[in-house]
């Protein structure tokens, strides 16, 4: 019942909004601070729906999944699942070649380690992200973006900090 109410609210919010910018973003993730010592760099993919509150400001919801392996062992995988709320501000929203912007995101991260045939208990922790973007047109209605982020999963005792290089494709949809 509780989850149905949440879903209904989310759907209502989406339907009532005017224009939504749908974004697919892929990223390469480099761990910072030693927690990635036995892991390789990670790959991430995420989907976001951002409501256009004005030409320059947009905010919405998204979910991202990321996976890290091991440089020499195929049996290690570390996964992250991040449902989040995010907001972005672009200076030249209709710029063809140069539309710089900033993004911030807050949410929760589910982290889980699998190694060999063992699996550690999953951890849910708050996380934040901030970064910059260079957005450009791919021909209406499609746009693309490049950027980098700093993010931190605020787990107990030690945070999971990381650096992300991102590439995204997006299009606006009038609902």
């Amino acid at each position, binding site marked *: 019942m509780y989850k149905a109410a949440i879903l209904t609210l989310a759907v209502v919010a989406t339907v009532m909004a005017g224009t939504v910018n749908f974004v697919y973003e892929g990223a390469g993730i480099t761990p910072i601070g030693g927690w990635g010592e036995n892991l390789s760099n990670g790959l991430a993919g995420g989907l976001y729906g951002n409501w256009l509150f004005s030409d320059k400001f947009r905010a919405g919801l998204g979910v991202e999944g990321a996976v890290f392996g091991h440089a020499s062992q195929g049996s290690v995988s570390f996964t992250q699942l991040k449902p989040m709320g995010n907001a972005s501000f672009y200076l030249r929203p209709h710029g063809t070649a140069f539309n710089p912007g900033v993004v911030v995101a807050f949410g929760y991260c589910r982290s889980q*380690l699998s190694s060999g045939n063992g699996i550690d*208990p999953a951890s849910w922790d708050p996380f934040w992200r901030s970064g910059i973007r260079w957005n450009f047109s791919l021909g209406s209605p499609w746009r693309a973006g490049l950027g980098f982020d700093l993010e931190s999963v605020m787990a107990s005792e030690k945070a999971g900090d990381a650096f992300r290089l991102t590439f995204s494709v997006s299009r606006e949809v009038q609902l």
Partner: protein
Amino acid sequence: MKKVVMISVVSALFLLLSLSSGCESNPVYFRLSSDYFPISPAGATWEYTINGGGSRIVTVVDQTVVGERPCWRLQSGADYNYWINEDGRLEKYEDHTVLFNGFEVPIYQAWITMLEWPLADGMTFRDSVSAQAVSQGVTLSHTWIRNQTVTGPAVSPDGVWSDCYRVNQEEMSINWIQTAGFAPETTVTVRSVWLAPDVGMVMMQSADSLVTLASFTGGEE
């Protein structure tokens, strides 16, 4: 427009609360960044107490080369052990001998991976060796099997160390001196080792002994 903003924000908060409810946090990034078997630098010392009396001191002596590989030499009492901890693996130089006519006959020497990092609950490792040697005209055969299971993370039994992994080790050794009057001799050793982050072994329990870490001093880089 205000209505849309409000509904969006409220639904986002509800979604986040829903996803986080019933979920627990644990220091997974701390465990990932920790060294569970810090065998360097030289000078690192672990002092253990043995139940029933006595103590054991383990010291990282220096770096050396064994089996054509650079490694760290650890001293425990009068014994030396050789270890490599790199590329996500902990390797130990296994030096197996068979006692025959009062002589320790070397029968198997090699680097064997003991653990792979990072540790996780439920990991299992199995290592085995089968070797033969001839001494004084007699064939000596040696079979060695080690099974290891990792459980955790948990607090050590003495309650001092958190985020430990427990490694249950079962080691079976069958030595057979293939001449009249000798039968295969089987030895089975079962022990549990607790490894704490950035400290290493903090407790070892076997059928006849309990070894507990009393103090740990990191070496100088």
